[in-house]
């Protein structure tokens, strides 16, 4: 059992406050820096007091990194990834939990194994396929018939390329699977007796019941999509498809230019606002969906 003594209490608070400072410290630096002038931010020591320069810095950052376009692209990318993941993982889990097929365990493990293969690990082959969608088929056809077919289709510089390879998700599938398994079998049986087929059951029973799950997943996946850096960097060469994470680098002052870190920090603040808002809005369901299952 946990003993409550003054020393233990004091120690707990100490650790907690230390952790809090570690987490919140960088934010304070960003907020303070983003509101200072060029002179203020370059003065030593750094002052943690916010000043009044934010709007000027923000508009400078907005123009320099073409943030309007980048934020638009990031919203499209994060949004598509989120919707795709939420929908796809719900359907995958539905198939795994409710359909008695002999391949059920195979599919379950296939999904499970991808947990160990995040994008960074499989980035080269994934890029290969995205850059030349028909390569596998061409190789197959060439292998079987010996005929070289030349069809070209790639996903480079497109929203499809930015999102499709990221949509398959084991995490989401698991979240749904765990939830579906807590539902009593009789629920599905009662629905069957009432004449509902699988599609109806999915839309009229499972989806409404897993609403909190869905919102939790939305939160995680939106932040995940928004924070993608490596993949857009590979897929996008055309600046019209630039995302915010890529424009961050454009905000960093180059070696010989004026060290206007205040503008950089203002841009950073703008870029991290949307995921913060999403988390703040959905956090109530986020916690509920991950921790408890509604009965």
């Amino acid at each position, binding site marked *: 059992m946990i003993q409550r003594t003054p020393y233990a209490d004091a120690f707990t608070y100490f650790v907690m406050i230390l952790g809090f400072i570690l987490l919140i410290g960088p934010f304070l630096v960003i907020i303070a820096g983003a509101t200072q002038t060029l002179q203020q931010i370059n003065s030593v020591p750094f002052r943690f007091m916010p000043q009044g320069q934010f709007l000027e810095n923000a508009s400078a950052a907005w123009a320099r990194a073409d943030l309007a376009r980048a934020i638009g692209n990031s919203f499209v990318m994060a949004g598509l990834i989120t919707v795709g993941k939420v929908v796809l993982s719900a359907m995958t889990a539905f198939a795994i939990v409710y359909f008695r097929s002999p391949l059920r365990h195979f599919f379950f493990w296939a999904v499970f194994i991808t947990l160990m293969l995040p994008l960074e690990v499989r980035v080269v082959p994934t890029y290969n396929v995205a850059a030349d969608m028909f390569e596998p088929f061409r190789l197959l056809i060439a292998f079987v018939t010996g005929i070289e077919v030349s069809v070209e289709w790639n996903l480079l510089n497109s929203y499809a390329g930015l999102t499709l390879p990221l949509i398959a998700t084991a995490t989401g599938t698991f979240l749904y699977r765990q939830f579906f398994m807590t539902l*009593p079998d*009789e*629920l599905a*049986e*009662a*629905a*069957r*007796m*009432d*004449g*509902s087929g699988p599609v*109806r059951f999915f839309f*009229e*029973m499972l989806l*409404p*019941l897993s609403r909190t799950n869905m919102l939790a997943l939305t939160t995680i996946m939106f932040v995940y999509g928004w924070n993608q850096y490596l993949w857009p960097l590979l897929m996008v060469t055309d600046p019209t498809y630039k995302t915010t994470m890529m424009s961050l680098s454009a905000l960093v002052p180059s070696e010989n230019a004026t060290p206007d870190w205040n503008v950089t920090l203002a841009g950073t603040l703008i870029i991290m606002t949307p995921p913060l808002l999403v988390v703040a809005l959905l956090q109530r369901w986020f916690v509920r969906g991950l921790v408890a299952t*509604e*009965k």
Partner: protein
Amino acid sequence: MAEIDIRAARKSYGKNPTLHGIDLNFQSGEFVVILGPSGCGKSTLLRMIAGLEDITSGEIAIDGRVVNRLEPRERGCAMVFQNYALYPHMTVAGNMGYALKVAGVPKPERERRIAETAKIVGLSDYLERKPAALSGGQRQRVAMARAIIREPKVFLFDEPLSNLDAKLRVTMRAEIRKLHQRLSATSVFVTHDQVEAMTLADKLVVMNKGHVEQVGHPLDVYHRPASTFVASFIGAPAMNLFESRVEVETASAYLGGAPVRLPSSLAASLRGKDVTIGIRPEHTIVATKGPGVAAEVDFIEELGAGRVVHMLVEGEPFAATIGEDLNVAPGDRVSLDLPLEHLHVFNRETGRRIDPSDLPADAPAQHCAPLLTTP
């Protein structure tokens, strides 16, 4: 209204046989209760009728149509589950109307039928509530209403009352019975509670380990149990059973060294055979002295209305119900009289009941006469 015909139905889960060839026929409008101990396959049989479980072999026909390959919704059955299985995100009205909605019944008619059905089960004031905000009894009613509203040919109940407290169970039992009289759809009701079975059934099916032990009117089953299993399973306290050999000289069985006379028609043909003999506690007569089977009182159970005295006869338990007037205490020696008209005789090897009518007609007189005269 539908007749249900079950022919040689078997069920195996993988290699484990669960039902070993069930043959049953339920008349249209009959209230059938399937009774049996836990794990005997009652639910499995019910779910096979419903279409929730595949039929490994054999046939089930509803209204003359073989339904083996039909989806549950095509069979015209409605089912009430033990844990109710209400849709937690829908209101009571939504739960009740769901089947109609799926069937494409237009909204005005749906609402009319929901209101009608709610009145039957007394839920009119709760239509807008979610199941989580209902008591156990009310949830049970919603589950019933959900079945009734479809006007099915067949009602299937899987232990619908076992989650209710004793008082509510009695009320709901009466309501189910009334409902059946009103709707007169064929009903199959699974339970392991024999009081429910006795009070509800037109036809009682007793199952054991995947076999049907006996089918009949509840009183018939009670008075003429077809096997030692049925004899000990039905009736509380359970029927006393003892093993004995029918003695050649006296045409009696023996219990605790004392002779127990058998009906002459039976005794004559059973001489020298090993049998199991049963008598219900309420038919056993206890006296403080006199001739009869010697027994020692072990303990006494007060039931309010009457008492059950548990005794030991040669170390084996033996129960009898006694009135208020008889004074016995643990340790007392008493004597038991087992009236021959209340004895049940079973074949010891097969456990099946032996009735005079089952015996070969030639059995009595010729054989026993000489035997009786030998000193």
